[in-house]
């Protein structure tokens, strides 16, 4: 017969993909703000993991003679009413705040995806019931909801994490449901059924992996929001009891002395703000990568 089987080799495409890895690093260098954001976030994680590497001061032991010392080379952030080094307290506080944040995002991400997946895949009555409950959750301001939950469970950092997590489930569920709905209607999902893959197999192998990308981008955005919520609840006194260093609590403790010793609130507050802004910047870049 006249025509021959002749699969064209596609070498150039492979080369293209190999190049994209190095391009990403190049992008980072060309965007100084993004680079700076990564440094800040990595630094904050470093503080949380190994605080003693970053400061020689103790977060608890104060020097009564040095109370309200202004920021200096010895005390970078200054000292508070009891003469405790604020930089040390901020560094040690990162552990409490960021752990709670991580927990909150994990709870919201895990439960939210599960709820959204169920609603989007099962459809019908289940979908209607779940999504109306989600609507109710979305209607209540999340900080208010978190406060109610902490009040019921009792004041502690772990409960704050739980409360912030639960109050953000709704957002994840909505995004996940929308993604699942669109993925389920794709040809490759129908094709998988056609090949004889079971329903569970289709969900686990095709629907979930292909739905998760935009939910992951939302999770990155949610980190900043969750840090704010955790610190906000700490500030209001729902979290760790006073001697503990926690970012929200640090700001709260300095509140009464803002006029005479502004650094007591400002320095931990600035650290908090920088970390939140940095996570936002990073999540925006992740979303753009995803859109590309």
């Amino acid at each position, binding site marked *: 017969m006249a025509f021959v*089987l002749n*699969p064209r080799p*596609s070498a150039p495409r492979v080369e293209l*993909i190999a190049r994209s890895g190095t391009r990403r690093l190049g992008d980072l260098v060309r965007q100084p703000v993004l680079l700076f954001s990564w440094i800040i976030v990595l630094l904050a994680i470093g503080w949380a993991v190994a605080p003693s590497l970053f400061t020689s001061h103790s977060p608890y032991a104060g020097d009564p003679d040095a109370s309200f010392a202004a920021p200096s080379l010895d005390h970078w952030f200054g000292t508070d009413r009891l003469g405790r080094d604020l930089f040390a307290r901020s560094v040690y506080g990162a552990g409490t705040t960021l752990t709670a944040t991580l927990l909150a995002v994990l709870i919201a991400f895990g439960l939210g995806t599960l709820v959204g997946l169920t609603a989007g895949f099962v459809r019908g009555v289940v979908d209607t019931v779940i999504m109306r409950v989600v609507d109710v959750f979305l209607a209540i301001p999340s900080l208010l909801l978190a406060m109610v939950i902490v009040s019921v469970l009792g004041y502690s950092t772990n409960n704050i994490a739980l409360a912030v997590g639960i109050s953000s489930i709704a957002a994840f569920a909505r995004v996940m449901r929308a993604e699942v709905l669109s993925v389920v209607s794709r040809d490759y999902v*129908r094709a998988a059924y056609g090949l004889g893959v079971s329903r569970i197999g289709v969900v686990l192998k095709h629907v979930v992996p292909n739905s998760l990308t935009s939910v992951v981008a939302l999770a990155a955005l949610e980190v900043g929001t969750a840090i704010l919520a955790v610190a906000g609840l700490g500030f209001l006194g729902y979290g760790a009891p006073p001697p503990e260093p926690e970012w929200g609590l640090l700001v709260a403790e300095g509140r009464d002395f803002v006029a005479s010793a502004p650094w007591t609130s400002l320095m931990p507050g600035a650290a908090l703000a920088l970390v939140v802004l940095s996570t936002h910047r990073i999540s925006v870049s992740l979303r753009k990568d995803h859109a590309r």
Partner: protein
Amino acid sequence: MTHSLIDTARAREDVDPDPPAEPLLQIDDLVVEYRTGREWTAAVRGVSVTVHPGELVSLVGESGSGKTTLIQGALGLLPDAARVAGGAIAYSGVDVTGWNDRRMALVRGNYVGFIPQDPNTSLNPVKKIGQQVIEAVRFNEQESSDAAAHRSAALESLRTAGLQDAERVFQQYPHELSGGMKQRALIAIALAGRPSILVADEPTSALDVTVQKVILDHLVRLRSELGLGILLVTHDLGVAIDRSDRILVLQDGELVEEGPVDRVLEHASDPYTRRLLEAAPARHAGRLEPTTGRRDAAPAGTPVLRAGGLSKTYQLRSRTQRSELRALDAADLVLRKGTTHAIVGESGAGKSTLASILVGFTQADAGTVHVGDREVTGLKGRQLRDLRRDLQFVFQNPFTSLDPRFTVSRLIAEPLQAFGLLKDKAARASRVSELLHAVALDDSFAGRLPRQLSGGQRQRVAIARALALNPEILVLDEAVSALDVSVQAQILQLLVDLQAELGLSYVFVTHDLGVVRLIADDVTVMRDGAVVETGPVDGIFSAPAHGYTRELLAAIPGAGHGA
């Protein structure tokens, strides 16, 4: 300025009706580049095109050949990421290269009319057809006139485009018209500025074959009646051969063949053009033979798949009324072992519904399906899954039917895994490699992702995957329709080879009668959900009993010049 351009152009034609001094459109050595990152890559590399009055020139090329970019460049409609990097464009001798958009807007419509590709998306859905034509009249008139004059000019334009009932169409919205009528409305819009040349970008690719014939007939008539020059862009060599005076073949942005139809047909000098000609389904009289040698006369096999009296009705609900769509009306089908049964029809004929009932994606309202001796109608869950071992499905579009996150080897191994076969890793890998070779791909493809493959390679992977369970029957739903014609030819050959080797039986759904002749033993022609005619391909093609079948056969592009 531009008026004088048009005037001189027309005056010149009046004075000298014989071979005109200047062609209507002359593109010289045009280079168009696209920006990718910070580099520019050429999509059109030095192409020259001329169109004379009363001449129909076809520009033929497969996807990615740069044919659309070329005419966008000629019309000044390039996207922002593209630029004209060299060459010249002249309309009737007036060089418009580098004209800004405002000046080009005066040339478009007045001098050159553009007919876009897809009539279903090219009209504004919230405006009546009449308004849209009037708009084109108003923007392109030489001296301003009143609303009544606009209206009558628009009606005249609609009539010239072949819409007999122009008054009624004038008052209708796009969704009230069929695809063919929408394409005529677009032609009317292109004609509204009384252009001397029409540029049509795949004007019939989204239309059914019988409608395509009517539209092309009309374009040809416009050319001879109005003396228009027409530049027809198409991927379908059959259409080009049937309709044009000259053919230009574009490959990778370069002109590889140019000349009058007969010369291209008889003495194509370029190997790519010859391959395209070979690949055009209409050029083949009989069924494809396996590459391994002639196959025995079609085995008079026992039926492996029987469908009887299948019906399916969809309930349509709009805000105002409920209605029913009878998608399938008592359709029968018998597939003999080791043969191919093609289901042919135009859009809405119910052929896809039929295929999807056969494989159990859709439940029929009435009727039965037997695979071998087993009744499979209404199977659910486990039993339906078991059926998949015998009956597999290949989708139309290989760009959406493969999970983008799966590597080729994982895609092919998926059905094996689903049924818990070949648990041993090495055994599975060797089966995957065996299947890859069966579809003429080598092991280097195993680790690739779908996006690293071309369309044809993807469809090969989809076929390999369908073969993984050693099924007896493959249901292919328009499995070659989304592919370029040369790739389509390769896939068809592959299917014929596999059939000879493995004794497979195919149900082959297609809208393209040319393809049917290449691959099928039996054919069922469908219209409006009902079977019009069924029987062996040779019989139906040589002596169609039904008028509709005759109409379909006559509409195959390129058939006249084919065998």
